[in-house]
C-alpha cells in the first residue's frame, strides 16, 4: 500500500512544489511575455495529464492489487477506447503546438523598424558594435581580425568607418525600441543569453545569426554564455544596461567609432578608456591564468 501512498504524494508534492516553491522565472524585461504565456499553457496541459495518469495508476494499484483468489480480466484490446484516447491526445498536442508556432512566427519575423546591433563573442568576452550615423553596419570577416581591429570590421568598407565599437565592456540599449541582434563569433560557438529577455541564440564562427526583442524596462541585466565554449565558459559574463533614451544618447556620445580606434594611437593618450585597446589575445591569456590559479 506504500506504493499507492507514494504515487499520490508524488502528484500532490509536485503540484505543491510548483505552486509554493520560491524558484520561478526572473521578472521579464522584454516583449517576449508571449513565450511566458506559452509556458503557462504548457504547464497546465502537461500538469493535468501527469496528475491524471499517475492518480489513475495509483487507483489501479489500490483497487486491483493481488488478493487471495483474485484473477485478472482478459481484454486483449479495445479499438474504440484506443482511438478515442489517440484523438484526445492529438487535441492536447495541437493545443500546445498552435500557440507555440504562432509565437514562433513572431519570434522569427523581425519588425522593419528594428535597429541592427551586433554582438561579437570570443573566448571569453563579449564585444558589441552599433551602426554609426549612416544607420548601417559595415561588413566584417574573421580574417580581418587583428589586435587593433578585434571585431574584424572590413577596413575598406566605408559603411564600417562610423560603426561604434564597444569592446569587452557593457552594452547600453534604449528602452522600448526593437533591436535586431546580429550574432557573430570569431573562435568557437557561444550563445548570447539574457534570462530576463527570454531569448537566446548561438553564435557560429563564419556565420551571422540573429534574434530580435524589445527591451521593456530599464535596468542592468547580466549576459550569460549558454553554449559550452571551453574552460572559461562559466566566467563569460557580460552586462547589458537598458537606459532611458536620454541616458542612452549620453552613453553613445562617449563611445568611439571604428575610424577613431584604427587611427594611429599615441600611447598614454588621456581619452583612451583603460583596457579597451588591450589585445584580445593578452586578455584571454590573463583569464586563463586566473582560471589555472584556482
Amino acid at each position, binding site marked *: 500500500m506504500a506504493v499507492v501512498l507514494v504515487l499520490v504524494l508524488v502528484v500532490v508534492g509536485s503540484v505543491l512544489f510548483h505552486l509554493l516553491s520560491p524558484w520561478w*522565472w526572473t521578472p521579464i524585461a522584454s516583449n517576449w511575455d508571449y513565450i511566458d504565456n506559452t509556458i503557462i499553457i504548457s504547464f497546465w496541459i502537461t500538469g493535468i495529464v501527469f496528475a491524471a495518469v499517475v492518480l489513475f495508476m495509483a487507483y489501479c494499484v489500490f483497487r486491483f492489487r493481488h488478493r487471495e483468489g483474485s484473477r485478472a480480466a482478459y481484454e486483449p484490446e479495445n479499438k474504440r477506447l484506443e482511438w478515442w484516447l489517440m484523438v484526445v491526445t492529438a487535441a492536447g498536442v495541437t493545443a500546445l503546438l498552435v500557440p507555440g508556432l504562432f509565437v*514562433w512566427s513572431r519570434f522569427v519575423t523581425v519588425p522593419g523598424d528594428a535597429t541592427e546591433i551586433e554582438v561579437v563573442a570570443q573566448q571569453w568576452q563579449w564585444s558589441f558594435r552599433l551602426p554609426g550615423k549612416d544607420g548601417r553596419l559595415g561588413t566584417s570577416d574573421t580574417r580581418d581580425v587583428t589586435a587593433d581591429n578585434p571585431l574584424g570590421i572590413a577596413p575598406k568598407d566605408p559603411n564600417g568607418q562610423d560603426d561604434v565599437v564597444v569592446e569587452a565592456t557593457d552594452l547600453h540599449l534604449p528602452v522600448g525600441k526593437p533591436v535586431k541582434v546580429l550574432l557573430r563569433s570569431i573562435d568557437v560557438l557561444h550563445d548570447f543569453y539574457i534570462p530576463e529577455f527570454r531569448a537566446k541564440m548561438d553564435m557560429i564562427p563564419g556565420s551571422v545569426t540573429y534574434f530580435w526583442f524589445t527591451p521593456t524596462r530599464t535596468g542592468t541585466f547580466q549576459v550569460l554564455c549558454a553554449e559550452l565554449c571551453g574552460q572559461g*565558459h562559466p566566467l563569460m559574463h557580460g552586462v547589458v544596461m537598458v537606459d532611458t533614451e536620454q541616458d542612452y544618447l549620453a552613453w553613445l556620445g562617449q563611445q568611439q567609432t571604428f575610424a577613431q580606434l584604427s587611427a594611429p594611437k599615441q600611447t598614454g593618450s588621456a581619452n583612451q578608456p583603460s583596457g579597451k585597446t588591450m589585445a584580445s589575445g593578452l586578455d584571454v591569456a590573463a583569464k586563463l591564468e586566473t582560471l589555472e590559479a584556482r
Partner: protein
Amino acid sequence: MVDVTPADAVPPAEVGEMELYHPHSWWTKYVFSQDAKVIAIQYSATATSIGLVALVLSWLMRLQLGFPGTFDFITPEAYYQFITMHGMIMVIYLLTALFLGGFGNYLIPLMVGARDMVFPYVNMLSYWIYLLAVLVLVSSFFAPGGPTGAGWTLYPPQAIMSGTPGGQDWGIILMLSSLILFIIGFTMGGLNYVVTVLQGRTRGMTLMRLPLTVWGIFTATVMALLAFPALFVACVMMLLDRALGTSFFMPAIVEMGEQLQHNGGSPILFQHLFWFFGHPEVYIVALPAFGIVSDLISTHARKNIFGYRMMVWAIIAIGALSFVVWAHHMYVSGMNPYFGFFFATTTLIIAVPTAIKVYNWVLTLWRGDIHLTIPMLFALAFIVTFVNGGLTGLFLGNVVVDVPLSDTMFVVAHFHMVMGVAPILVIFGAIYHWYPKVTGRMLDETLGRFHFWVTFIGAYLIFFPMHYLGLMGVPRRYAELTDMTIMTESAHHLNSFISIMAFIVGFAQIVFLFNLIWSIRHGREAGGNPWRATTLEWQTPQTPPAHGNFGKELPIVYRWAYDYSVPGAKEDFIPQNVPGAFAPSREPA
C-alpha cells in the same frame, strides 16, 4: 486478438537446425565464448563497470555544483572532463551497450526460440571490439592532458581547440577513436540481432507473436544501424580536422589573437550529423525499455498487455518518426529559423504514439491482478518518471518554449528524467525479473526493496526540482555558479540539496551491486519459471539455460506471448509453447 494455432496446423520447419559451435576448453566456454548468453553477461558486466565510473563522475560534479569552492581539485578543466565522460559513458557505453548488447544478446535467442544468434562468431567479435572501445575511452583518463572536456556533444570548433581540455592533447583523439570502435563493434552485434529476429524464430513464432521486449530491441537495433553511421562519419571528419588540419567543421578562426589555418568549414554541419544520430539514440535507449516494461507489467499484473498490435505499431511509428525530429536539439543553434516550424510539428506528433504506449501500460493495470513484486515496482516508477520526462519534452519540443529553456538546467532535468532515470529503472526491474533465469537464484527481496525506494524517490527529488532552476535561467555546463545575478541564495541551497540526494541515490546502487554478487551464491533457489511467465525463455529445460538453450527439441509456438488469466484455463498463464485452445471469450468493452 485471439490467436491460437491448432496443434496439428504448425508449419513444418523451412530449414534445418544450425550447427552450433561447441566450446572445448574453459577459454572458449567462458572468455572467447560464442554463446550469446555468455556474451550478454560480458557486455553487461563491462557496461556496469564503466557505468560505475560514470556514477563516481556524477558525484564529483555534484560536489562542485552543490558546494562551490569547497573542493580545490575540481578545476573548471576537471569539471568539464567529468561531465563529458559522464554523459558519453551513460548514453553510449552503458545504456546502448547494456540494452542491446546485454539484454539483446540474452533475450533475443531465448525469446524467439533460437539456439543462438545466427552469426555467433561475429557476435563474439562484437563484444571484444566493444571492450577495446571501452579501454580506449578509459585510457584517456591517463593520457597527457586527460580526457576531452568538450561536452558529450563534442561540438566543434571548441572540441579540437586549446581552450577546451583535451582539445589539443590526446583526449579528443581517444574519444573519437573509441566511438569509431564502438560503432564497428555495435554494427557486428546489431546485424546479428536483426537477422536473428527476422530469420531465427522457431516454428509458429510469427512477428505478431513476438514479446514486446523483442519488438523494442529489434526496432532499436534497426534504428541504431541507420543512425550510428552519421556519428561514424562525423567522428572520422573531426579526427581529420584535428589530426591532419582539414576543415570539415572548421571555419576561419582567430584563437588567442592568432589566425588558425582552417578555412571554410561548417560547425553546424557537425551538429546536424551528431543529432541525426543523437535523436534516434534517445529512442535506441527508450524502445528496449518500452518493450521490456510492457512485459514486466503484463507478467506481474497477470494480464495480457493491453492493445498489443497498437503497441507494436507505436514502436515502429516512434522509430520511424525519430529520424525526422533531430533538429529540435538545434532550435537555438543558429540554423535557419524556419526549420523550427517543421521540427516542432514532427516532434509534437511523436508524442501521440508515445502517449498511446503510456495509456496501454496503465490500462494493462486496470482490472489486473497486480503483484507488487520488485519488477512491478520498478515498472510503476518507470511510468511516473517517463511521463514526467516525456511531458517536459513537450516544452522543449515546442520551438518557442525551447528558446528560454534551451541550454539551461531544465534540459538537464528533462533528459535525465526521460532517458536516464526512466530507462535505468526499467533496467533494474528487468534485472530483478531475469536474474533468476540467468543465475537460477532470486535476488534478495529486502535489499531489493531498499534499493527501489531510495532510487525512485531519490531520483525524483534530484531531477524534479532541477527543472525550476532551469526555468529561473540557470545555464547548464557551468563549472561554477558564482556571480550570477539571477540566482537567489535559496537556489544555491536547492543545488546543495540535489547534491546530497545524488550521493544517497548513488549509495543505493552500491547496495544493489552487493545484492547482485551476494545472491549468486546465497539467493533463494528460483526454479525454472518463478514468475509463472508465458514467454519461451522461462520454458527452457535447464535454468540457467544450457548452450543451445532448448535441449533436444526447439519449442513450437502456438499462441501470443500474453495469455495471462485466460478465462476457462486452470492456471493464470499459458506458456507460448503449450498447444490447445481455451476458447477465451472477449469481454465486452
